[in-house]
Structure formats: C-alpha cells, structure tokens
C-alpha cells in the first residue's frame, strides 16, 4: 500500500514537472513529431480492429437487452450512446495503454539502462523537458484522434452486427446514432480520451524512468505501467460520471 502511495506521489510530481513546460510552451518539436508518427501510426491498425470488435460486442449485448424490453428500434440509439460516450473511449484507452503506453515505458526503461537519460542530463538537457513533455502532449493528441476513428469503426462494427443479428437496416441504425446529440457524446468521449492520454503518458513515462539497470526491470516497468494506467482510466471515467451527475 505504501508502495502504491509513493508511486501515485511520484506520478503526480512528474506531471507537475512536465506541465511546467506548457506555459510558456517549450516543446521539442523534433521529438514530438517523431513520437506522434512513430507511436500513432504503429498503434492504428490494432486499435481500429479491436474497435470494430468492441462495437460488435456492444450491439450484441445492449441490443439483446433492448430487444428484451421490446424495442429493437432503440438498438442504434443505445449502442450509439454506449460507444461514443462510454465503452469506446475506455476500451480504446485500454488498448492504447497496452500498445503505446507499454512501448513507451519499455523505450524509456531501455534509455535508462543504456545510460542515455543520464547522458542527457550530462549534456545539460532536462530529460523531463526533452522526453516526458513531448510524449505527454503527443499521447493526449493521439488518443483523442484515435478515439474519433475508433468510435467510427466501432459503430461500423455495430451496424454490421445489428444488421446481421437484429435485421436492423444500417440506415436506420446510423440515423439513430446521429439523431439525438451525437456531438455532445462524441465531444465528451474525446475530452475523456485527452485525460486518458495524459494518464497513460505520465504513468508510462514514470515507470519507464524508474528502471535502474537490470533488463528484467524493463518488463516490470511495462507491467506496472499497463496496470496502473488501466486503474487510472477507470478512476478518470468514474470522475467523469460523477461530474455529469452533478451537472
């Protein structure tokens, strides 16, 4: 328990140290664009594929329940809300953390082992400014964009299943998704994704930089990074739900 608290403290502290470079903005653009391209493109196919599956699953379940309540025509509405606002961002966040967060933790851990981080500070370069801050911004942006695409793919998956399983015309499905207030739902999902991205980036940077010298520790860092960011994801999601209830 004490270990957990000290990690949470360390993660918060790392966040504040990195956030200092936001105002005034001091961004290492070379590293920022590299991360964006390298991590973002890499994670796209698998995230989208899982998004399609997620959409299918959501329709299977919500569809069945709505059907039980006797309103097949509501399938699109129900799954639209579920995907855009709730399940989409969370599951895409989990996959993103598994793919990009863990890769990031491993990369930084490796840089620690090969003394690259120490060499950086030896050259008067602040690792937090050079490594952590660009990653933080990049992952927030990346996850927001991925969530928009992921939502789209999830709804495509959903419309296919509701067509095949519930005989619901895709046209009707999409009308239902788009009719109520999809923009609000989408925006809320994207805002959530930005926070998820912040969570994943700071957590994975923190555990990556915790590595000292043993290769074995890199595996531990990846593990802790994924586990902790998943926890963080649910906590953030919960806070959002609370905030909406309050509003």
């Amino acid at each position, binding site marked *: 328990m004490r270990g957990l608290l000290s990690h949470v403290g360390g993660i918060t502290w790392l966040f504040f140290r990195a956030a200092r470079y936001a105002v005034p903005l001091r961004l290492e653009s070379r590293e920022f664009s590299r991360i964006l391209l390298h991590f973002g493109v890499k994670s796209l196919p698998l995230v989208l594929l899982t998004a399609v599956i997620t959409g299918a699953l959501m329709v299977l379940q919500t569809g069945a329940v709505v059907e039980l309540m006797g309103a097949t025509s509501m399938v699109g509405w129900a799954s639209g809300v579920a995907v855009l606002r709730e399940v989409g961002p969370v599951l895409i966040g989990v996959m993103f953390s598994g793919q990009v967060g863990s890769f990031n933790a491993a990369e930084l851990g490796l840089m620690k082992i*090969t003394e690259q981080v120490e060499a950086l500070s030896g050259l008067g370069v602040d690792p937090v400014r050079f490594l952590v801050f660009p990653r933080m911004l990049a992952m927030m942006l990346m996850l927001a964009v991925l969530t928009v695409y992921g939502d789209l793919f999830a709804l495509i998956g959903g419309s296919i299943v509701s067509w095949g399983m519930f005989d619901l015309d895709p046209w009707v499905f999409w009308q239902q998704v788009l009719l109520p207030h999809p923009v609000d739902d989408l925006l809320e999902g994207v805002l959530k994704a930005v926070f998820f991205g912040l969570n994943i980036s700071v957590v994975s940077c923190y555990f990556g930089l915790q590595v000292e010298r043993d290769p074995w520790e890199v595996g531990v860092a990846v593990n802790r990074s994924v586990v902790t960011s998943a926890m963080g994801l649910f906590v953030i999601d919960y806070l959002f739900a609370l905030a909406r209830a309050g509003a």
Partner: protein
Amino acid sequence: MIVAQGLRKAYGDNLVLDSVELSIADGELVYLVGQSGEGKTVLGRCLFGLERADAGSVRIDGFEMVGATPRELHRVRMSYVYVFQHPTLFDSFTVEENIALPLRYHRTGSEAAVLRQVDRWLELAGVTPYRRAYPSELPFGAQKKVSIARALSLQPKGLILDEPTTGLDRATADALTDLVLQLHAELKLTTVLISHDRPNILRTASRVALITGGRLVDARLGRPAAEGIAIEGDPDRILARFLGQGPVA
C-alpha cells in the same frame, strides 16, 4: 582544477572509497585504474557529481560538489562532460542530430552556426562520413567516437571517459586512445580515463591513480629506458603487479 579530499563512499557495509585524496591540474591527463569491482567508476562518478559521496569534499574549479543542488551540479557537468561506457546515442537521431542536440537545446546560435559547429566536431572525431547515418548502422568504435564528439559540442573544459576501450578490438582501442590523446593536446582538455586497458595504459599513461581496497595509489609512469616502464609512487608495487610489469628504476 579538481581536488578531492577525504572522499568516502560505502554501499551498505561495503566500503568502496576510504578517505581518497586526489588532485588533478587543468589540462592534465590521468588514468583511473583498478580491479573489477574496486570502485574506479564509483570514484569517477563521485568526482563529477553523478553520485553523492558519503563524506569528504570535491572541489571543481573551486566549487564544492558534495552537497550541491542538482541545478548547480548541472552547470559543472556541462563543463566537465562524462562520456559513458556505452555510447548512449539516441537511436532515433542521426549522427548529425545527436551532435547538434545539445546545441539546439541550449539555443546556442543560428541553425547555420550550429551546423558549422557540428562540422568541426565531426571532423575532429574523424566521423564525418557517418554524418547522416543512424547510430545502429555504425561500428561500435565509431559510435564511441560520435559520443565523444557530442560531448565536445558543449565546448567543455574537461572530459571523463568511462572505459572508452572496453569491448573494442585491439586496433580500434588503440585508435580511440590516440584520438583522446590528440583531443587532450589540441583542445587542452583536462582528461580523466577510467580504464583497465593494460596495453594502452602502458603505452600512453604518465599519471595513474589506482584504487585498491578503497585506497588510492597515485603513481607516475616514466619511460627512461628503451624497454620497460619506471613507476614512482607505488611503494607496495600494487600498480606494478596490476600492470604486470616490475619497475625498472
């Protein structure tokens, strides 16, 4: 000028440095040697603020390193750059970008000025042909040279090289040692070499600081005769045994 007094460092109950005294003048070249695990790297790291000594004092150009804040240490470490045993280059940056990194980060000048500087360090380290290559495409010896060039880009007063020739074959090790000697002479760098490369120590060292049992033996190597080496300041002949060669005089 680097002056260490009464330096002490222990890990648990393992005393690695025990009241070590060492003084290195500006522009001097010193080898730090010792058996594996005897703490020559620890001494190097304590001297230049990568590790905090338990007791004693290290003054670099009059500035007290033990107990200094990280920010102050940073400033000193930019003028005495530590070159790690592994090349520590950024895999995703080309050689040129690696060398330009500190210059661009510290906004030292216009882009043209940065590139002119990079030219100079590439030339000095003899790695100009690798300019656009990525570190993983370079032979190990060239990677080490690039990491030296990167250290030079800050125009430091001194270099500390941690086992620069470990992992290199004989010819490359000798060439790298010659490069370090040449840079030392040309740029008047204070140079500390942490090493157990016996042939090169015998070939090039004039002053050797040996760590053994936490203590430091400060010895001078002379080459009076055509064959053999004279070692002064080694009453217990520890260094002589380490180098596998008895004193001539």
